């Protein structure tokens, strides 16, 4: 196992962005995801390996710890920040085709709901696990989801809602998407929803945590 990739996965797991970042305290002064990714590319490590053997294992570990309530939102956000810093270096390689993403995931908070913390967390975790993520933001209508899936055939759609007052909008949006582009898969999440609700509104999957979305996508894009 490449030493740099092991270090990189640790940076992602513990949220070490760059050497200047004071977080996490136990890694103070060490190189972060920023420096290590650059160094790995300079020393000729395959961009695909950086993604799949460096970033993804780190993201997976923090995702599992989050699911097990061993870490909370702040730690995941720092991991995601470290990951997106690394991704900036990798982006040219995705564009050139030297590295490939596993599939496309479209995410948005449903119409009427302006909350984005949970939606952003999922988006960042999914991206960190090797997917292209299209974030439509908050208060997203059926039309916007449909337009995005038409532009990105075979993308999976993720719907988020925080409020008991807006979760009901998931039903119409799910139906509209499936009417417009039959076969599109819809996964839902958010504090008030559960698998029973998912089943009732005709969505395809419910995940209680971001890692669950990643696992669902890994099965669907396998």
């Amino acid at each position, binding site marked *: 196992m490449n030493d740099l990739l092991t270090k990189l996965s640790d940076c992602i797991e513990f949220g070490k962005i760059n050497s200047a970042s004071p977080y996490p305290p136990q890694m103070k002064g060490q190189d972060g995801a920023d420096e290590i990714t650059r160094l790995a590319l300079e020393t000729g490590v395959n961009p695909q390996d950086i993604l799949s053997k460096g970033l993804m294992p780190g993201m997976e570990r923090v995702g599992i710890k989050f699911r097990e*309530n061993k870490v909370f939102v702040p730690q995941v956000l720092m991991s995601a920040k470290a990951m997106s810093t690394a991704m900036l270096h990798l982006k040219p390689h995705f564009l050139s085709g030297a590295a490939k993403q596993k599939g496309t995931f479209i995410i948005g908070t449903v119409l009427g709901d302006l909350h*984005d913390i949970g939606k952003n967390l999922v988006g960042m975790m999914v991206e960190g696990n090797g997917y292209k993520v299209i974030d439509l933001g908050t208060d997203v209508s059926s039309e916007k989801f449909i337009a995005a899936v038409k532009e990105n055939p075979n993308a999976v759609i993720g719907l988020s809602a925080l409020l008991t007052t807006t979760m009901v909008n998931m039903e119409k949006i799910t139906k509209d998407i499936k009417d417009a582009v039959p076969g599109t898969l819809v996964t839902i999440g958010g504090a008030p929803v559960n698998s029973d609700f998912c089943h009732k509104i005709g969505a395809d999957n419910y995940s209680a945590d971001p890692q669950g979305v990643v696992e669902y996508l890994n099965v669907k894009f396998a």
Partner: protein
Amino acid sequence: MSNLPEKNIMSKLIQEIQKGRVLVSDGAWGTFLQKKGLNPGECPEQWNITRPNDVFDIAQSYIEAGSDMVETNSFGGNYFKLKGYGLQDQVFEINKAAAEISRKAAGTERFVLGSVGPTGKLLLMEEVTEIELYNVFKDQSIALEAGGVDAIVIETMTDLEEARIAVKAAKENTGCEVICTMTFDKILGGEYRTMMGISPAEMTEALIEAGADIIGANCGNGMADMIGIVKEIRKVNAQIPILIHANAGMPQYCDGETTFPETPADMAGRVKEIIDAGANIIGGCCGTTPDHICEVHQIVKSL
């Protein structure tokens, strides 16, 4: 509004609590507004200007149910949330109106709590600075005081830093008592943590140090788990008054409608236990109605 009653000058919440009284707070606002026709995508706080009579009805129904205090329709009345609706220039008007409506319903004998919710901006992600947060909470608190609230209730907080800044801003810029409640989930190990990982014990000293007069928990749990949260606070602090706004259980979805499972009797049935655990003010959050508050009031009165 004309002929507005003065604020409750008779007493302060903490003086009532020090007399050994258990006080009853109000129930849900969001789910109630919806029942009155609030549409998805509509700004709830704008109703203070456009539909003040409907907002007044809600406040009044809780007063009639026997509540000792009523909140204001201003949970999302901060600059950032209002900006989502293009109403960021009306922070003062909207919050002042919210306070005036609840004051009118409460009269001079009951308390009015000015509701302040989170901004939705994360300090950690550098979406906002501490100074910006402070000023946003300051502006909202000042407007609520101008409309006649007795206390500011900062609620549904999950980030301790944001909660501390809000408490300071309310304390340093108004003469109101300051209450702060956070929202906890029961995690896998059976402990309680906010989404950001804060425990009730961790919250306690930090909020008191920031200047909170009363602390507690709202939303996220029904009464049963709130009892555990009260016990945890009491383990680290015997004195600080505790306010609990419990949900009527966790939401369930049926035939296009969201419902909450706990009946007024279910809620009232836990009141004695939560008082024994150390709670001083008991009210409701999502899914609770005037009927819930009425039954809680009956139990509290009988104890």
